[in-house]
């Protein structure tokens, strides 16, 4: 077998990375889910009317990504056919085992339930108006309830509110837990930090908000609908605020490490200046954080026209998505590039058409987009449309 290039001394079993790019995209996707949901909940729980045009779109985005989230894990497992054992015989002290239940809770008890309650009236109308297989599809989705009287809808609204209130801590738990999976590994000083879950939550919110902002702009452009600038300005403002908190936390972590300078410091410092310089310093901190922060701050300080604001928002959101992806990369891959002996460094060689290579990673990253497209076709999230109306128009 060929072994990756090693500098200094690695324990011999450490030279090959145990976790690949698939484990990078898994927290990235989960973060998009949590962030999109938290943005959606702003409207419902905190009554931020301005973000209402994106409310349903954010929910469907969250679902599209959440459906894909377990796939990179499955592909990574040595024995995916045994993964059901995590539910049947979970090991209670394992953060990973408990994550399975958090995921299932979030998918079924929060997201699917909330989407169903919110779209129920549309589903019933479509079930009555459609023909052919679509009629059957919507009839199944009604779960046998055709009551869309004002009283029934008021109950839906109330129930949806409760689900969202439960959903916010659930979304925080979902991604905070992903952070805990890394943060609780005491063997690895690059991961082991109580700040990890908090950093993961805020970075998730940044990526989720940025993704919804871009999807909203893109779908408005595709549908040739004017963009609600009050909505876009609000989302961009929230992006700026969460990004500032996220960046402060990450810098706090970094400053703490530099100042404490424990036994791992020399290793981590070396990596930051060499192997992780491009992905962490250049892409994550400069291009993926400081530039979008400056752009977003600019829109708050200087009064700009609509066209300029749109362009700046789109650029800042795109860079934020790149920056958060780089952050996941630096955590997962960066955390395995140095030896736990702190005496050496290895390299990560990524395959292309291999089980854990670049191609499956790209496919999995793109997969939520067609899923979202299908979801949007089946359950149009636009306020003016209904499922029946949209299909009649097409």
């Amino acid at each position, binding site marked *: 077998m060929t072994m990756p290039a090693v500098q200094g*001394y690695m324990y011999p079993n450490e030279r090959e990375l*145990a976790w690949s790019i698939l484990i990078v995209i898994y927290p990235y996707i989960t973060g998009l889910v949590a962030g999109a949901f938290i943005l959606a909940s702003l409207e419902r729980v905190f009554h931020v009317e301005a973000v209402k045009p994106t409310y349903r779109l954010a929910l469907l985005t969250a679902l599209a990504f959440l459906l894909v989230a377990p796939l990179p894990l499955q592909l990574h*497992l040595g*024995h995916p056919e045994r993964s059901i054992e*995590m539910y049947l015989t979970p090991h209670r*002290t394992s953060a*990973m085992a408990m994550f399975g239940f958090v995921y299932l809770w979030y998918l079924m008890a929060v997201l699917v339930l909330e989407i169903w309650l919110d779209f129920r009236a549309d589903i019933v109308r479509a079930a009555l108006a459609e023909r052919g297989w679509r009629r059957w599809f919507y009839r199944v989705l009604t779960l046998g309830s055709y009551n869309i009287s004002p009283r029934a809808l008021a109950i839906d609204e109330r129930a949806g509110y409760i689900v969202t209130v439960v959903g916010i801590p659930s979304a925080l738990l979902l991604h905070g837990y992903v952070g805990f999976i890394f943060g609780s*590994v005491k063997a690895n000083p690059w991961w082991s930090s109580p700040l990890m879950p908090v950093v993961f939550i805020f970075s998730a919110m940044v990526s989720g908000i940025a993704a919804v902002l871009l999807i909203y702009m893109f779908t408005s452009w595709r549908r040739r609908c004017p963009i609600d600038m009050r909505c876009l300005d609000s989302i961009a403002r929230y992006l700026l605020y969460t990004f500032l908190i996220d960046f402060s936390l990450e810098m706090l972590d970094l400053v703490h490490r530099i100042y404490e300078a424990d*036994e791992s410091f020399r290793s981590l410092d070396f990596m930051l200046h060499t192997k992780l310089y491009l992905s962490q310093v250049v892409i994550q901190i400069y291009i993926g954080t400081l530039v979008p922060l400056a752009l977003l701050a600019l829109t708050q300080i200087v009064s700009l026209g609509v066209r300029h604001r749109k362009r700046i928002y789109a650029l800042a959101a795109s860079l934020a998505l790149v920056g958060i992806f780089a952050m996941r990369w630096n955590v997962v891959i960066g955390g395995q590039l140095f030896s736990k002996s*702190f005496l050496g460094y290895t390299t990560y060689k990524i395959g292309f058409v291999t089980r854990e290579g670049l191609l499956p990673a790209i496919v999995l990253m793109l997969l939520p987009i067609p899923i979202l497209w299908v979801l949007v076709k089946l359950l149009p999230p636009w306020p003016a449309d209904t499922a029946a109306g949209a299909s009649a128009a097409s």
Partner: protein
Amino acid sequence: MNITRRHLLLLFPAAAMSWESLQAGAPEQAPNYQMYKHWWGMLLDISKCIGCGNCVRACAAENNVPEGYFRTWVERYRVRDEDMPYPQVDSPDGGMHGFPALPAEPGVKEFFVPKMCNHCADSPCTQVCPVGATFITPDGVVLVDKEYCLGCRYCVQACPYGCRFFNPSTRTADKCTLCYHRITKGLTTACCEACPTGARQLADLKNPNDPIHAFMRTHSVQVLKPYLATGAKDFYYDLDGAVR
């Protein structure tokens, strides 16, 4: 048919012979091994290790360890007296074929450190396994159930000593079993048996007659990375502060 005394006298030797042949095909009988009576660990005497690599070869042969991965390995440390925190370490092929001699340098000490699973009493790898495929036996050996392991590799990340690897042929986590198939039959591990200097000694901490007790009373022993509080049971004698 009536069985007479004459018939019986003829039948007995025949029955005895067939019983003997049946016995020959039966598996080796384990002694009356009782797990709760043992608590296994290892004593590693750095002053005795000569870096011959016999242990690494014996382990690989005994346990069918895939090439490029190690259930045990030997490290060579070269420590400059004024630069103890940053030693030079190498382990070509895990020390399997010994070490090429290096010229002696003034102010540099050289020694070998055998490494293997610490069979921690509070092992992080056992803690993180999502299905409990990794477990500690009542006699203190950390094992992996290959029929149950998902191959998620969380345990590989959690081991602070780098003792675990992902076996590409079974697609599960793999590690030292402390030759469980041997020690439960009263034998020692393959690495201990192959060590020409006695640098490795299997130790039963529950056995009051095990020489480890006398040794630990009269010598300074240390475990690796004690600050991680894993309850490591590989006890090192003559461990230098430079060793990680």
